[in-house]
């Protein structure tokens, strides 16, 4: 059963079929939330919340992007809200027991949190890129392939790969650029 058929059936009332969606994409969503939320119970809880959110808004899925991308975006949005939520000041005893005796002197939790938030922003910007650009960015940066090698994989000319990479970077820059401050706000 394809994703589109699956969703149609679920919306028609076959709630139990949502288990198939979870089974198909659980690893992806779990890996996404786990990369931000350390502990297992917390990541599992977040993954569950992501799927519940997806289920509630299943009627809004228009099939323009693959279901995996749609769910992944929901996960990243959920993480954004979760990272901004103030953390409880009390630490459970079990967590204290797992803290190593020696700590990294360079470790700064605030700096770490800001870096995580920034990474999430970049990840969201990447996930919003159209498929044809996202793939080129991934192959070039993560796999370190040349334009020619990417072209051979995607059946494109090296020149097209270069153009797509250039456009993708421009889109990313536009999405990641900090909001411009109006001139009157900066004037004394």
């Amino acid at each position, binding site marked *: 059963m394809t994703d589109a058929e699956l969703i149609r059936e679920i919306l028609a009332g076959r*709630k139990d079929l949502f288990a198939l969606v979870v089974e198909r994409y659980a690893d992806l969503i779990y890996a996404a939330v786990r*990369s931000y939320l350390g502990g297992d119970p917390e990541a599992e809880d977040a*993954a*569950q919340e992501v799927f519940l959110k997806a289920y*509630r808004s299943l009627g809004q*899925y228009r099939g323009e992007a693959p279901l995996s991308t749609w769910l992944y975006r929901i996960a990243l949005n959920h993480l954004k809200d979760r990272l901004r939520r103030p953390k409880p000041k009390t630490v459970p005893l079990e967590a204290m027991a797992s803290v190593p005796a020696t700590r990294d002197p360079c470790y700064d939790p605030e700096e770490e949190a800001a870096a995580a938030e920034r*990474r999430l922003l970049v990840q969201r910007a990447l996930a919003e890129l159209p498929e044809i650009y996202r793939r080129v960015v991934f192959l070039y940066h*993560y796999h370190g392939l040349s334009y020619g090698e990417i072209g051979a994989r995607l059946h494109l000319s090296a020149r097209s790969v270069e153009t797509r990479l250039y456009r993708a970077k421009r889109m990313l820059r536009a999405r990641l650029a900090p909001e411009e401050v109006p001139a009157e706000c900066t004037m004394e």
Partner: protein
Amino acid sequence: MHDGVDCRRLRARFEAYLTLHPEDEEAREIRAHLAACPDCRAELGRYFILERWEEGEAFSVRAAAGLAQSIIGSLEERGVTPPPSRTAKRSEGARPGRGLFWNYLAAALATLLLAFGNCFDAVTGLAVRTGRLQEGIRAIDRYTQRIIESSFEDPGGWWRPFESESDERR
């Protein structure tokens, strides 16, 4: 440290690496380091979870086997239902071709209305313009008549000098 490069400093520049021009010197430096440092490459991989998953990479951390069942359980427990699909709502109970007939009828009516509106506007516009012209001519006529009448009534009217001049000549 790896190959004399500070990995921590380099990882902080990943965002720039993704957005810089490929020929930029810093981008080249990071690319060269990534090719030699598996730890930094793994760190960069955190940006590409979706793409790695699409490629079929098996992640070292996997969701618990019972996740699907626990989610279905909590859906039933909370009584959560998804909102109906927009497309499903549109097609629900609709006979094939019926919607199309109403669409065509509405389009035909709209075209007729538009055409009628344009003709009506043209006719009324012409009438209005003609009416205004006639009114204007009448106003000029009245104004000229009033000037002539008032001039004859006024003893020091504009014709006096000419009249006296002609009298003197006589």
